[in-house]
């Protein structure tokens, strides 16, 4: 029997924070797959849309949610890093929805998407990363 998921001693029911972080991770994977040119069929588009809408609506007060979130130099400016990160996640969700709705994503917008993803990933410092997901390259 294949065993997956949390370590035995850390096993518990999933809470809202688990769901949100998982959905944010999924959205990042979805958009990276899009940037790589992986096929996005009808069902995938539906999944992206639903996921992005959830992230957009649930994205609040991320500062307490993400451990080790940097509160570096930007804190001295008018907006602190938490707020900027919150806006970036909202932006990622909006970009995802626009892509699914087939709105034109020209080169400069693609560049913005890549930059936004990079900054979000750096802030989250995703450990372990996503492993073998070659199946995303086909539909």
């Amino acid at each position, binding site marked *: *029997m*294949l*065993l*997956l*998921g*949390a*370590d*035995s*001693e850390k*096993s*518990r*029911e*999933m*809470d*809202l924070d*688990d*769901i949100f972080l*998982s*959905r944010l*991770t*999924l959205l990042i*994977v*979805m958009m990276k797959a899009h940037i790589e040119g992986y*096929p996005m*069929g009808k*069902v*995938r588009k*539906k*999944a*992206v849309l*639903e*996921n992005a809408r*959830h992230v957009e609506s649930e994205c609040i007060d991320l500062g307490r949610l993400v451990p080790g979130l940097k509160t570096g130099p930007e804190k001295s400016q008018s907006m602190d890093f938490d707020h900027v990160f919150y806006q970036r996640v909202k932006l990622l969700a909006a970009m995802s929805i626009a892509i699914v709705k087939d709105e034109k994503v020209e080169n400069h917008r693609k560049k913005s998407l890549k930059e936004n993803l990079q900054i979000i990933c750096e802030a989250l410092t995703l450990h*372990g990363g*996503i*492993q*073998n*997901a*070659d*199946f*995303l*390259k*086909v*539909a």
Partner: protein
Amino acid sequence: MRCAIIPNVKIAIVEDDVLVRNFVVNTLEFSVNREVVAFEDGFEALHHISSDNCADIVIADINIPQIDGIELLQKIKKKKPEIICILTSGSSDLEKQAGDSGADAFLRKPYTVNDLFKIVQTFVVEKNKETEP
């Protein structure tokens, strides 16, 4: 490098927590680019799965209403042993019972996108490679 092939796989999710259920559906639909059916109780799921050719893979939480995940798995395996049955739970104490009942995998909560991708890789992609001519 040869790319993975996604067969026309039918996946069923049985989970009474709507947030978890919807997250799993979105992740798996994105992974395999196929519709995934979802149920919130074991009885409804069993009725659907008992129909011809309605599921290749079933992912069921153990703690669900009507018929729990373990009983659901036992009923499915008795009638259609070829169906891949994966059980999930927030309690690792149920792991042994799941294994003894014939579960193909046990997914301890909280699980991640990576865990769900691993399920697709193992039971959809790798399994399809085994059956390829």
